[in-house]
Structures are given as C-alpha cells and as structure tokens.
C-alpha cells in the first residue's frame, strides 16, 4: 500500500509545513490576539507531531525487517550538475531512529505546554527541527544528508539561545561553532568522495571501494564531524553547556535525538564506506570511548547541577555506543543501536524529570533539594525508575544496551570490556548519590513544603517513557529483529572488505601466518 506513496517525504516535510502554517497564522493575526495565537500554535504543533508519529508507526508496520536493503525509496533527480538527487529511504539501522524522533517530538511539545514566551516561534522551531532530524535519518544522498545534518543546527541554536537559561548565548554559540567546524571538514571529504566516484548516491557509495590511504583521510574528516556530534571525549565540552542552558524540551531533543546523529553517521558512512580505515582506527576509538566512559562518569560525580550531571552521564553512555559500533561484532553493533534508542528514551525521561522540579522551584542545584519523596511520592518513584534505567539495572532497557555492547567488546578485547565495566560501576555511584540527595532524607528546605506531585500532562509524558524503558528491558527482540538484517549486511560487508583488501597489503597475511 505504501509502496507508491512518498511516505518518507510526508513524514519529513509535514512538520515543516506545520511550522510554515504557524508562522503564516502569526503574520495574519494582530498582536493583541497573542493568547489565541499561542493556543493555536500549540495545537497545530501537537496535532502535526502526533500525526507524523502515527505515520511513522504506519511506516514501521509496513517495514519489512527481513530485508537488509533500503525500503520506501524515493528518488528524484534534483541538481545533476552537482550530482545531487533527492533520494530518501530507510533500512533497519535508520528506521527506528525515525520512529524515535517522531515519538519524542509530541512529548517535547506537551512538556512545553505551559510556555508563554514567544510560543509561535518556539513551536515553529521545534517543527523545523523535526523535519531536519528525520531528514538526516532518511536521506540517501550524501549532500542531502549533509543539508539536513547541518541544517539542524539552526533551530537548535535558536531554541537554546532564545528559550535557554542564564548563560544561553555562550552555550548556543559554543554548540553551533563546535559542531559546525566538525561538519565542514566532513563536507570537504564528501566533495572529495563525489569527485572520486562521480555520484552522491549513498547506495552506490556504500559499494564503492575507496583506496586505503584515501580512506584514512576521509575517515578522519567524517570522524571530526561525528565525534563532535556524538560527543566523544575530548570534544564533548559543548554538550554540558548546551544541556544546562537549553529549555527542558530542548534538552530532551538534544539528548534523545541529536546525539544519535553521530552514531548513525558512523554506521552509515564511516564503517561501511571506509572499512579499512575503521579497522585501523578502532583501537583509538576504543581508548577514547573508555576515557569518555570513565572520565565523564567521574566528572558527573562532582557536579552540583543535576542537569549537568545527566549531561555528563550522556557522554558516558555515548561512549558505550562508539565502543559497540567499532567492535564490528553483531552483538556490539546491535547493542550500540539498542543503547542509542534506549538512551533516547531514558535520557529524555531524565531531562523531563528535571524539568518537572525545575518548573516548580526554578533551580537545578542538587543541594536545594532533599526529601522530595515525602512531598512528591509518585515523582520520586518515576524518577527512581529512570535513574535505575540510566544506571543499567537489569529489567530496564539501559541494561540490555550496556550488556550487549560490553559482550561485543569482550569478543574483541577483554581489556576494553573491563574498562567499560568500570563505567557501569561509576554510573551507579553518581546516579544513586544524586538521586539520594534529591529524593531521600528529610525536607530541610522550607521552599519544598509547597511541592505538588506530577500533574496529568507530566504523568502522560513520563508514563509512556517508563513503559517503554521497562518493556524494552524485558523484550529486546522487537528492536533487535528490526535492525538485524541490516546490521548483518553491514558486518559482512565490513569483513569482506578486510579480506579483499588483504592481498593488497602483503605484510598483514604473512604476519598472521607466522603466529
């Protein structure tokens, strides 16, 4: 049924249409009618995002998980002079990210329901962001990918800068310039690839064997972009600033979706297109990942700002993702994708949890709180659940992702798995200590006396996320089955590239034979 309909384009561009509708509505309304406009903007945004989510579910139902290649492919010639075509499609690796994005957006809109500062612009920015992010996951043309990838900076820059906290301008600039510098190097690499192959079609590029020394340079250029986006240690410093300053919904998007762009980029470009370079650099990535896991966990432990703590914990969790991806074992890669999706749910929920208390008390200082369990028992329970999920407690989705990546890492090198395991312990330490300080104990701060528990809107948001976090903690197969075929193909391709390339480099086989 969906074969003929451009469902991916619909999912991608409907939010942008919604944004245009909101802006047009504002242009048509007088400034006195702001309250009406705000209400309408929220309504439009919620309706559009929910509709897009429904469409994405429909797509997921129609998606054939047994097939490794791209599905729902749409292709139109666009700029032949630059080799660019408008080509969209999803495979097992990307399809769930599209659904995750479409799922988190309505939650973001709902969580900002009480916003009263420049609502129309806010909703338009979020809808534009949805278009751009979904576009990244659907694009099957290299430059098209870049356009969406880089374009997503614009709405996020505005979201942090306009609706953010005290130090928002610094954070917005840092976020933008860090990621922009990484990305332009990727652009240069893409142009080189285009001149080499003569096309920007990702499907063709996936099959193109690049020369070994060229691969090294291209890999590094792409790494510059994805490592910043990921973010990997030591280029992660933009993330805590951006998270702390961003409004709650901005943090949800940032942690839930934007951080996944880097991991997705590794899986879509770096590994399949530059397999030899990926193998060469894998030890470096392992080391950086372990440093990220251990160091940022320790940094997180020292944080007094709860949002910053979660931000550093995100960096640590993304360390597991890069670790899993570069093991290039089925378990590792599957685990990395699982970890990304699970982190998308859990970190989004944690930022929402922080948003709940921030909305009430307007501070993120851990020392301000204490004893919330007496005042907000439901909140304490929900927050506790997500804190545990973040630690990787068995029975939550966080556990599955971590255990899979670590097992994958163990198959490659036990030392790497041991390093990563340290991070699991540390994460339990900082998370539980922070949770204890905020939730348990006696209420010492008189300002907390008036605390009210979750309202219906917060209930819906957190409840849905909680169900997912627990469900996928017990039943991981819906996710792993969807991704398996594509991941298998990715690994096969990677391994065959290693063997095909082996005769070219004479030293390698001789050495292994000698052992």
């Amino acid at each position: 049924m969906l074969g003929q309909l451009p469902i991916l384009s619909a999912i991608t561009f409907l939010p942008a249409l919604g944004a245009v509708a909101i802006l047009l509505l504002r242009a048509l309304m007088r400034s006195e009618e702001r309250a009406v406009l705000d209400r309408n903007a929220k309504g439009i945004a919620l309706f559009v995002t929910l509709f897009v989510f429904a469409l994405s579910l429909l797509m997921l139902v129609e998606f054939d998980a047994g097939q490794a290649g791209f599905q729902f492919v749409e292709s139109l010639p666009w700029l032949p002079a630059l080799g660019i075509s408008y080509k969209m499609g999803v495979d097992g690796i990307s399809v769930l990210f599209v659904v995750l994005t479409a799922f988190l957006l309505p939650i973001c809109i709902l969580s900002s329901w009480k916003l009263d500062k420049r609502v129309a612009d806010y909703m338009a920015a979020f809808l534009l962001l949805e278009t751009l992010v979904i576009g990244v996951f659907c694009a099957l043309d290299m430059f098209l990918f870049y356009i969406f990838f880089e374009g997503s900076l614009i709405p996020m820059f505005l979201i942090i800068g306009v609706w953010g906290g005290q130090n928002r301008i610094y954070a917005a600039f840092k976020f933008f310039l860090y990621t922009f510098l990484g990305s332009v190097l990727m652009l240069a690499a893409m142009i080189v690839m285009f001149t080499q192959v003569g096309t920007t079609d990702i499907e063709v590029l996936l099959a193109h064997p690049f020369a070994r020394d060229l691969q090294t340079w291209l890999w590094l250029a792409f790494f510059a972009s994805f490592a910043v986006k990921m973010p990997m240690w030591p280029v992660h410093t933009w993330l805590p600033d951006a998270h702390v300053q961003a409004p709650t919904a901005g943090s949800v998007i940032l942690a839930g979706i934007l951080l996944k762009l880097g991991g997705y980029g590794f899986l879509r470009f770096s590994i399949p297109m530059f397999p030899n370079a990926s193998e060469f650099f894998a030890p470096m990535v392992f080391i950086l990942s372990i440093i990220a896991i251990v160091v940022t966990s320790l940094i997180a432990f020292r944080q007094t700002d709860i949002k910053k703590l979660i931000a550093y914990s995100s960096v640590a969790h993304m360390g597991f993702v890069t670790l899993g991806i570069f093991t290039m074992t089925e378990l590792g890669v599957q685990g990395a994708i699982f970890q990304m999706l699970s982190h998308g749910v859990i970190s989004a929920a944690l930022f929402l949890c922080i948003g709940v208390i921030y909305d009430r008390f307007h501070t993120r200082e851990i020392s301000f709180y204490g004893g919330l369990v007496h005042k907000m028992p439901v909140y304490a329970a929900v927050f506790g659940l997500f804190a545990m999920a973040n630690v990787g407690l068995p029975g939550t989705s966080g556990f599955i992702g971590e255990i899979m990546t670590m097992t994958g890492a163990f198959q490659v090198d036990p030392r790497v798995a041991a390093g990563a395991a340290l991070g699991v312990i540390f994460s339990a330490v900082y998370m539980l200590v922070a949770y204890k300080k905020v939730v348990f104990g006696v209420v010492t701060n008189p300002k907390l006396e008036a605390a009210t528990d979750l309202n219906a809107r917060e209930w819906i948001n957190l409840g849905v996320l909680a169900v997912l976090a627990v469900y996928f903690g017990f039943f991981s197969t819906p996710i792993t089955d969807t991704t398996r075929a594509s991941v298998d193909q990715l690994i096969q391709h990677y391994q065959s590239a290693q063997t095909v390339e082996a005769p070219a480099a004479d030293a390698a086989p001789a050495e292994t034979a000698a052992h």
Partner: protein
Amino acid sequence: MTVSTLLADLQLLTPELVLAVGAMALLLIGVYTKGEEKAAQRIMTLATALLILAAGLSVWMAQGPGGTAFHGAFVLDSFAMYAKTAVYLAGAVALVLAGHYLRTEQLARFEFPVLVTLAVLGMSFMVSANDLITLYLGLELQSLALYVLAAFNRDSLRASEAGLKYFVLGALSSGLLLYGSSLVYGFSGSTSFDAIAVAAAEGSQNLGLLFGLVFVVAGLAFKVSAAPFHMWTPDVYEGAPTPVAAFFATAPKLAAMVLLARVLMEPFGPMTEQWQQVTMVMAVLSMAFGSFGALMQSNIKRLMGYSSIGNMGYVLVGLSAGTALGLWSVLFYMTLYVIGVAGAFAVILSMRRSEGMVERIEDLSGLSQTRPALAWSMTALMFSIGGMPFMIGFFGKLFVFYAAVQAGLIWLVILAVIFSTISIAYYLRVIKVIWFDEPTGDFLPAPTGAAIISRLAALIAVSMPVVGIIIALVVNAGAGIGG
C-alpha cells in the same frame, strides 16, 4: 565599414543603446522638469523602467546567436547575456531600494538614477569586453559614476570621505590596470583578447606577459574588493548612503567578477597555471581578512563590507580551478550572493527609527519580537550569505568547493571550509542580536520597496528547489567560454 555591418554591430548593442540614449533623455527630462522633488521621483521611475526594459531586451537577445561587434572589440555570448541581465536587474533593485531613502534623507535629486543608469551601462560594456580598450572604457564609465554616487550625500563628511577614498584608490587601480594592459599589449602585439590568447599560448613562459597579467589582475581585484586590495570596502560601505552601498555590493561586484573571470579564462586561458597562484593567494587572503575583520564590527554596513571581501574569497576559490566548472561556480555563487546581499541591504534600509536611520548591529536587538517577518527574513539571508545548509547560499559554496577539488586544489578547500566556520560566527552574531536580545525600540514600518525585496530575497534564500533553475541558467551561460 559598410552601413549594413554597422547596423548589424549596433544590433548586438541594443540594450546598451537603449541605456545610453535613455540616460541622456532622462538627463534632459530632469533638467526641464520643474521642482527638484518631482523631477527626482519621475526620473527614478523612468530609470527603473529603463533598466527593466534593458533586462527584458537582453533576455530576448539571449534567444539569438550573439556574436562579436566592432572588429571583435565587443562580444555578446551567453556568458555576457547572463551577466547583463543580472546586472540590469540588480541596478533596478538598487533604484527601488533607493527611492524612499533618498526622499526621507533630503537627497532626492534626479542625477541619482541617471548616474546609476550610466554605471550600469559601463558594467554592461565590462561584461562584453573582448578587447583591453573596451575593458578599460567600460570600467571607467562604471567607476566614474560610482565615485560620484559614493559621495552623493555631499553635505555628509563621511560620504565625502568615502567618495574621495574610493576615487583615489580607484584611480590607483585604474593606473595599475592600464600599466598592465600596456605591458600585455607590448608583449602580445594586440589589445584584442583573441590575439592575446594566441600570444599567451605560444609563450606561456613570457615574463613580460606575465607581468602584465599580474597588474591587470591587481587592477581588477580592486574592483571586486579582493584582498590585499580590499581596504576601501568597509569604509566606503559605511560612509556612502545605504542604497549606494547596496548598489556597490551587488551589480558592480558581479560585473567586475565576470570581467575578471573572462580575462583570466579567455585571453590568459593558456596561462592558467601562472594566474592560478595569484588567485589562490588572493582567495586565502580575502577569506582571512573578510572573516577576521568582520568579527569585531559593530556597524552592520561595515560588516557587510567585510562579508563581501570574504565572499569574494570563496568566489576566487572557484575561479582558481580554471575550468569550465570553476566558471559556472563563479557565476552561480555571484548570482546567489547578489540575491542575498540585495535582501540584506533591503533589511538594513528598513532600520529606520523616528529619529532617523540606524545602522549599528545592536539596533536590531529583539527584532524577532518587534518585527517578526523582518527578523525571519534577515535570519534566512544571513544564514544564506554565510553558506549554511538549507539555504541556497550553501549550494554556492558547495559548487565552488567542488570545482576547486575537481581541479586538485584540496588544500585550498580545506582552508576555505575552516574560514567559513570563522565567518559563520559573525553572521550568528547578527542573528543572536535579532533573536536573543531584548528589544530596545521599534523601527518605523519598512518602506514598501525594501519590504518586498527583503521578503522576496529571503523566500528565494530558503527555496532550495530554485537552485536547480539557477544552476541550469548558469551552466547554459558558462557554456560560451572557457570550455
């Protein structure tokens, strides 16, 4: 020369003739119309119509085969026709933007549109130059009109300074150009581009020709404000009346860049390896001066001045490729740049408070709350000029970089992408002021012309599908030369 060949030659010059005769007629009408204000208004309208008519004529002539006139001194190929249409339209846009400003600033004199028309006529000859003499005549006609325009607000110290500065430096560059031309003539034996190309192909190691080439390039680099010949740009942009700066930033830039491209690709095409080094150095310097210089500016017109220096650097990256692809990328980039800058200046011309025009970046504070439509337009335009994806400006950069990589200039491209990160920072600053800062006061409603042009340019800036059309036009236009 028989009458019939003369007529055939003149036919190729139809738009130029219309402009030349029209400008004289406008002058007469202006002199004989009573009341300065009324004359100015009438001439403004007529001149705009004249430029649009000329644009229409050149579009119409693009259907024909083109050819050369006056023994090869003047050439009308697809390249020239494209550039002419763009220049005429840019001139018309500048006049539309100028009308309201000149009236409210008590500068409405009928000479303004006439001077713009004459400058455009000069540019029209520049882009069709196929001979060093035509080149110089066109360039001087354009420059002389622009010197006067820069100092048009003669009671303003800054405008007079801008005019004088532009004149002195412009005269210097003309001198360099003439000196270079005389060397080229001396060593090739001809002023005709075709003959120079033959001489260049025969003796590409010819030192005299090389010297001449460098001086000619230096002279033209002044006109496109490429570093290290860029010093006048920020001062003139700041000092000249805003609509004049808007005009400077669009049509003359386009004409001079097209002329530079033609000179390098046609007569000196065989010496690509020699001039490539010069344009590469200029490209890197322009990008560096443009991006670092703009970071600390507080005046939006100065910012646009530095931005234009930087952008010329990117164009020169494409030109350095020295291939047909490079030529296309130059035309393409310039087209997108002119659209973006025209829109940005339309926004700047909308920055009017009850106490008069303002031009500090801070004056845009909170624009997103006071004038949302203007704010969204400026945001789109700044991102487009900065080459941010999702805006058409990105494709300009992409095309330029692609041409350079194709020609093996990968290091130039890596430098260029790094400079583009630095330059995005100052466009971001404008956007930060518009969006993040609290309003300090409202602007008066924007004049109709500026409002329409800023919105239209912003709309084009976000319409990615348009890119395909422009590329098709550019490729068609560039097919004429270089090869």
